[in-house]
Each structure stands twice: as C-alpha cells, then as structure tokens.
C-alpha cells in the first residue's frame, strides 16, 4: 500500500428506506474509516432524503440511521456534499436537512452545484456509488 492517501468519495443516490442501499453504504463508510483516507460523501437524486431532518421510520420497523451521519466527522468524513439541484427538484432547502457539526462547530453538510460537484468528483481517486 502506498504512503499517500487516496481521495475516496461515496455517492449516495437513493432514498434512505425502501431499499437497503443507503444503510449498507453507511456501513461501508464507517468500516472504511480505519484506513484513514481522504473521504467525502455526496448526496444526490433521492439520496438527499437521507439527510432529511425529523425522520421517524420506527413505524416501518426501521432504525433511524440519519443520526449516524452526525458521527461521520469522527470517522474522518469532513464533507457531506448535497447537490443543490436535487434538493430544489424535491422542494427542499438546506433548512430541511440535518446539521452535522465538525469539531470547530462548522456544518459538514454543504450545498453544492452540479457543476462544482463534477469538478470535485473529477479530483477523486475512487468514486463509490450506492
């Protein structure tokens, strides 16, 4: 294994419940933290619903795993990018999303345009889509 870190981006495109993709993607992010790479997560398309504030899936017998996103900065995930266009298309704004405070209290959840997202994606070594 080389000494330089790789830039790894997790791309979340699906709604949090209804399928297991979102939850199992989060498991990968948590497990991958041990390798101490430069990690970011992106939420686009229906994936933006994963960060929706005030989820209550207990009536579906599902766990509210949106709370786990709050721990991501402790797992070296410093950026949770949300594609702005996806958010707008679904009638949502930043206020509908949970906040994920970093150590310095800044919010790791950042809105980003599709164009800027393409540029950041282009800089990655590994892009994993779930």
């Amino acid at each position, binding site marked *: 294994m080389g000494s330089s870190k790789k830039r790894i981006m997790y791309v979340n495109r699906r709604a949090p419940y209804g399928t297991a993709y979102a939850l199992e993607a989060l498991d990968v992010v948590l*497990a991958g933290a*041990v390798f101490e790479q430069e990690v970011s997560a992106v939420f686009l398309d229906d994936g933006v619903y994963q960060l929706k504030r005030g989820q209550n899936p207990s009536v579906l017998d599902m766990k509210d795993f949106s709370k786990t996103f709050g721990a991501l900065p402790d797992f070296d995930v410093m950026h949770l990018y949300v594609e702005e266009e996806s958010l707008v298309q679904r009638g949502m704004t930043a206020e509908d999303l949970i906040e994920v405070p970093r150590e310095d209290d800044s919010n790791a959840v950042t809105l980003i345009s599709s164009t800027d997202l393409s540029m950041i994606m282009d800089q990655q070594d590994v892009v994993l889509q779930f």
Partner: protein
Amino acid sequence: MKFNILVNEGPYTHQASDSAYQFAKAAVSAGHEVIRVFFYHDGVYNANRLSAPSVDDRDVVNQWVRLADEYEIDLAVCVTASLKRGILSDQSALRYGKNADNIEKKFQVAGVGYFIEGSIIADRTIVFGD
C-alpha cells in the same frame, strides 16, 4: 492495470454480476490484473453454491469460480451482508446453529474493509450495480 471490483446485485434478476464477470474476463484477457471481486448487498447471492440454473442458461456462480481459478482472482463476500441473507459458510452455520451452509468455497468471507483496502491498492475500482 490493477482492478478492484464491487458487485452489488444478485444473479439472474440483475445484469450487474454478468457485466462484472464480462468486464473481469475482458480485463484479464487483455493482460490486466483483477486483484479482488467483492460481493455486497444482494451481490452476496452470487456465492450461493446451491444455485441450479437450467442447462441452457449461463451458470453465474460457477463462471465466477472458473475465472477466479484460472486467473487467481480473489473472490470475497461481505460477512454482515451475507449472514443476514442466509449465505453461510460452514463455520457460520455452526456458530449460529443453522443446519446447513451454502457458500461456494472459492468465495472467502470478509469484512467490507477488505473491499476498501482493495480500492486503495488497485489503480481502478469499478462498481457494478443498478
């Protein structure tokens, strides 16, 4: 070039496993190296040795085994994803009190970190899903 591959869907319903297989086969035929194929989500069903397709159909499980044998490709299923879907090694069957196991022996059982490690070692990681 070294490839690391992720398969996120089961056989037959989805084309992901077939596409991954065709890609891996083409890559090794062209002189590249496929260092690891990791099966996640419903992709773990690709390791079910009890699969019995009709004789005029491709045998998805066995074609992975044959390719892995020929080119020394490392096949691995996610331990968490496979356990909850009833894809069990003999050791897991013993541990969880189940009266049968069904993992094709060519597939090793590993944590999802094994896949992330593969993506760090490899030049390219390719995800096959929906």
